[in-house]
Structure formats: C-alpha cells, structure tokens
C-alpha cells in the first residue's frame, strides 16, 4: 500500500514539476508566443519581422550529414552560412524523421533561440507549417515541397529547378549508353522526382531516339539494402547507365562501378566512388541561397519577400542552386559542346526541357505546345513521359 502511494507521489510531483516549468517559461515568453499573432509583424519596425535579429539558425536533415548526397549538400550549405555570418550560431540536427518528432526538434531549436529554421527534407513540410503557425516570430522555410494553401507570413518553400541539370545529364547518358537502357532508382513518386525522371528520359531521347528509362522505387530516402537490390534488378534488365533520386548515393554508385556499368550522379559529386563509370551528374550548391534567405529574415523583411512563397529558381534566372557535376571519361568533347548548347536553349525564355508538345507513356499529350513556367512544370509532372518503363504507384 505504502509503496503504491510512494510511486504515485513520485509521478504526481514529476507532473507538477513539468507543469510548473511549463507555466514558468510561458509567462516569460508570453510576449512572443501570444502577442505576435499579427501586431508585432505589422508594425514593420526594423528587426521585427519573422527571424529578425536572430542569433541562431537551425537546420534539420532527414539523414546523416555525410551521405554523399542530399543531406551532405544541405549541411555544406549550412556551413557556408556560418562562414558568411560568423556571429550566428548554426544548429544542425541529423536523422530527423519526417513526422511529429521533427516538430519537437524545431521547437527545441526555437527554445534555444533560433528564429530562422531550415527544414530541409521534403516530408518536413507538415511539421514545419505546424511550428510556423505556433511561432509567428520565427521564419520557417522548407526545402523542396510545395505549400498548397495560403503561404503563412513567416514561411515558404524554396528549391532549384532540379530537372534542368538532370535533363543535361540525360543527354550525356543517352550518348553513353550501349544498350539503350537507362535505369532510375527513386524514392517516392513526388512531382519533383517524376520531373527528374521525365527530364532524364527526354534529355537522353533528344540524342538517342531508341533510349528507354527503367524505373524502380524504394519508398525510402535512404534504405541501402533496397538500393542495392534495385540496382541489381535494373542491371539484370540490361541497363548500362543508372541514376537515382535517393538521399544517400554511395551504394548505387559503388554498385554500378563494381558491375562495370555507368552512373549519373545526383545531389553530390560522388565521382570518386566511380572513377571508371561516372558519366555526369548534378549537385547542390546551397550556400548562396541559404545565406540570402538568412540575410532577408535577419533584416526583418522576410514577409512579402520572394522566399515567403513557393520560390523556385532555375537557369532562366541565372541562379539555379542545382549545378552540373563534372563529366566522366566517356563523355567526348562533341557531347560536352552539345550539352553546353542545350543549356543555353533551356536557359532562354522560350526553352525548357518540357517545351511541349510532350507525349505521356500512354500516348496522350502531357505537356501542350509552349513553354511551361517552373511551378506549372512541377505541377504537371504527375505521369511518366513516353520512353519511361514502369508505373507510378496509384495515388
């Protein structure tokens, strides 16, 4: 009997301590938590917009920061922010899942004093919006997803037009392949990925009309075992150039090199892992855009800025953060020249990898005649183009 009471007392006191702490910090942070629901933002005084005057910037990554891929690139971007703003403290959190745990990590960053948060994984959007709603004084930006409803005053998404350099890499792949079979290992059928797969096939088909792209999805940003199996299956189909949309890229790159196949990189320069088979690739160079977002928020001008939206930047603006990687040994000068010319074409006002008409897998028109803008391109990439072999999971 006594023992039960003791443990009950322990729990109650723990709960009381928790409650007391909760109340305590609430009263001290009341000014930011309750009154900033519009009035502080609206005053427009210097240093009052979301993120203004922040001493810390937080970055969330879904995977490890040295994955030869997406997270490594984002981490490097965060370190460049550190270089540009030596007075800012940079908080980084790796392996943050795309669920409510991300909410908690962001809350902790904010409690530690961060008023600018970069949620860098696609699936971090829901928690990011939840945190943005709870903290109007914090600028929460998300990398690569799309806010469908009204964009909150302290939030936004940003990304490069990934499919542009992928289209150019597709040209190199289309020239390099002997079997006319390309392989694409992807994670999820999200619009940016479908755009990449389509752009890769379109680029390859522009120089090699017989080429096909075989696709396999893994339903995971980085499950190395599934990647290994997917690569083997594609090679077994006769694929001789493989590429991927995965966060971590080492496994597939090494698998290709070992099997004597060729590989097109994505997210980061992994050419050192495949000295023989590396064809081309695309990689992130986030430093500049991250720094600009931070500068915008610090100055109190985030709300209404181009980052307070679904911001996309590509070749036509001259500042795509997604850049071409180096070419491999099998890419000859003629191909490089061709790619350079094509880059000029898609950088011009009337060029795009998705310049219509483009036919879908089913033979129906996917893109009508004309040049779609960036967001239209992303939105319309819901089906594979002709030449892609594989089906998108329903949904």
């Amino acid at each position, binding site marked *: 009997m006594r*023992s039960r009471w*003791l443990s009950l007392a322990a*729990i109650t006191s*723990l709960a009381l301590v928790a409650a007391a702490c909760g109340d305590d910090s609430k009263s001290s942070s009341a000014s930011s938590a309750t009154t900033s629901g519009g009035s502080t933002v609206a005053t427009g005084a210097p240093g009052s917009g979301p993120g203004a005057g922040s001493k810390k910037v937080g970055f969330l990554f879904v995977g490890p920061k040295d994955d030869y891929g997406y997270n490594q690139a984002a981490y490097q971007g965060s370190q460049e922010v550190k270089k540009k703003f030596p007075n800012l403290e940079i908080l980084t959190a790796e392996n943050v899942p795309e*669920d*409510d745990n991300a909410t*908690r990590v962001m809350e902790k960053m904010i409690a530690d004093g961060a008023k600018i948060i970069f949620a860098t994984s696609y699936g971090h*959007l829901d928690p990011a919006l939840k945190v943005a709603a709870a903290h109007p004084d914090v600028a929460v930006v998300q990398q690569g997803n799309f806010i469908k409803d009204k964009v909150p005053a302290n939030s936004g998404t940003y990304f490069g037009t990934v499919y542009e350099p992928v289209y150019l890499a597709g040209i190199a792949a289309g020239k390099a392949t002997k079997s006319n079979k390309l392989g694409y290992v992807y994670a999820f059928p999200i619009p940016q990925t479908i755009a990449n797969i389509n752009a890769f096939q379109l680029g390859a088909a522009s120089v090699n009309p017989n080429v096909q792209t075989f696709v396999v999805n893994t*339903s995971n940003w980085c499950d190395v075992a599934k990647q290994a199996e997917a690569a083997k299956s594609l090679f077994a189909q006769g694929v001789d150039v493989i590429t991927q949309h995965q966060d971590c890229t080492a496994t597939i790159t090494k698998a290709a090199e070992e099997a004597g196949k060729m590989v097109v990189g994505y997210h980061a320069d992994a050419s050192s892992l495949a000295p023989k088979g590396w064809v081309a690739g695309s990689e992130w160079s986030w430093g500049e855009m991250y720094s600009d977002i931070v500068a915008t928020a610090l100055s109190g001008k985030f709300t209404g800025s181009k980052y307070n939206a679904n911001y996309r930047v590509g070749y036509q603006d001259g500042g795509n953060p997604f850049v071409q990687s180096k070419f491999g040994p099998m890419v000859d000068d003629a191909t490089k020249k061709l790619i350079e010319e094509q880059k000029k074409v898609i950088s011009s006002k009337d060029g795009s990898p998705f310049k219509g008409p483009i036919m879908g897998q089913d033979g129906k028109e996917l893109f009508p005649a004309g040049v779609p803008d960036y967001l239209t391109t992303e939105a319309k990439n819901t089906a594979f183009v002709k030449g892609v072999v594989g089906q998108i999971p*329903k949904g």
Partner: protein
Amino acid sequence: MTAARPAPSDSISGIARIVVALAGALALFGVLMILKGTNPLVAYADMITSTLTDEASVEGILVRATPIALAALAVSIPARAGLINVGGEGQLIVGGVAAMGVALALDGSGPGWLRLVLMGVAAAAAGAAWSALAAVLRLAVGISESVTTLLLNYIALDLMYFLIYDVWKDRQGSGQPATRALTGSERLGLLGDTRVHLGLLLAVVATVVVAVVFRRTTWGFRLRVVGGNTEAARRAGLRVGALLVSGMAVGGALAGLGGYAQLAGAEYKLRSGFVAGYGYVAFLASWLARHRPVGVSGAAVLLTAIAIGGDSLQLDAGLPAASVNVLMALVLLGVFGFSKKRAAS
C-alpha cells in the same frame, strides 16, 4: 519463477535501484562522451536543463509518452495473468489504422464528436482483436503469445504501409505515402496553447483505472490467480481461457487507444515511421516498473524523457541523437541486471 509477495519496502528499493542504475548509466555514458571528445558535465547540464525545464521539451515528452504509456499498460495487464505481450508495436499501429479507417469511411459525415468517439472505439477494438488473437492461438494451438504478438507486429506494419502506399494514399497529397490529414473535428483537443493533447488525460485515466481494477475488482484478482498458478486456478473453477483472452484483449485495447491518441492528437496522418519503436520501449517500461500500473506509466515518462534528451545531445553537444539509446539501455541494464538476483527465468 517464485511469485514472491512484494515486501513493504520493495517499491522504495525499486525506486532506489532505478536511481542507482541511472547514476551508473550516466557515469558510463559520460566515459563514452569523453571518448568522443565531449565534456560530459556540460552535456548533462545542458541535457537536463533543456529537457526538463524547457516548455517545448516537456510538452514533447508528454506527447510522446502518451502512446508509450498506453502500450505499456497493454503489457502489464496480460503480464498479471502470466502472458507476455511483445505486440505493443503492432497493437499501436492497428489502433491508428482503424481510427484512420473510420475517419476515411465517414469522410466528414455526422457530428464531429461522434466521429472522434467512433475512431477511438474502432482503435480499441482493433487493438483488442490483434492481441486477443495471440491469446486465442495460445489456447487453441499452443503457440506462445510472445511469438505471435511479435509476428503480428510485422504484419501490422506491412498492413499500414500497404494501405498508405496506394489504397489510402492522399491523392491530393505531396506524393509520399501518407493518408490525408485528419481535419479539425477529427482531432483530439489540445490542452491550452500547448502541443499536449487530450490523449494524455486518456493515459492518466487508464493508468488509474487499471491500478484500481488490479486492486479492487474480482477480475483483477482472478487474473493474478491465473498468473500465479494456472493449474490451481483451473481447479478452483476459474475460467482460465476467458481470463487470458480478456486480459490480453483489454491490454490490446489500451494500446489501440495509444495508436488513436498518437494519430488524432499528434500526427494527424498515417505515414511511414508512425509510432516506430514505441511498442518496444513500452514493453521495457512495463518490465522496468514490474508491471505496476502507476509505476509503468512513470517509467514510460522516464524512458521518453531520456529519448528526448537526445535532442539536446545533438543540438547542444553535437553527438548523434540516436546515441541517447546507449544511455537508455544502460539505465535498463542497471535495473534489470543488478537488482536483487532472481531465479533464472
């Protein structure tokens, strides 16, 4: 195993051994931190202050401990009857799946409160069915319930993935496998302006009710008799089968409610990683507190607090968040391994 009646001082020594284990674990983990070039004193100071005094973090603990405590009670109740439920993970998942299924099927029709209630009922029923199956199989074919509950975890997980991958996938969504989000009236209310939801109250009430049931009801008493000596219970005329199945089912229902609370209170969507690992932590919480309801929920809070300390470890000390699992494991090893030596089980 001898079912020694707890001595009056048993629980005091119980808390004491947790404290000793915690101290030992902190010391050992500190050594590991030194190996990684981190000052453990600073790291611990940061970890304790930011985990226990920061509002966001305390809310995070309570949110995450809610489904874990409910799933831990799902271990404790069958344990009283001598059954081992390793299936908290699967029962949490089917609870979430059932709740989501009801929300999708009703699709906004009917009064909001009714939908919320029906979701909870479905979740409890699903969790109960999932766990009772294990008890039934034990009685009918003689397979150990610890084996079946473990297997049913994977089946539940694959079932959820199967559904969110295409059948239930949100067609207006972002392309990742996930259902649509629950809308306003399908969500559990929040306590004040915190992130803590009504599921916490559910967990607290469940803890108290289970404690009372264990102590004051015939059913609770009979469960214990069956757990103490099945043969004697049978000779005394108790319906052992019904007791085993009901004990398991009631536990599973609570875990199902845990899945419901996590879905309707915190996540709002089924997506990959839903309650991942919570069921196993819950199992450990129940064992940590020797299946005593109030202690079990306390242990769930303690283990969750340690896990959330990982945030600080990462942000303040620069160590990987998952390394906090070492600390949690060391605490548990201390308690399991260095308490009064018991007869080998």
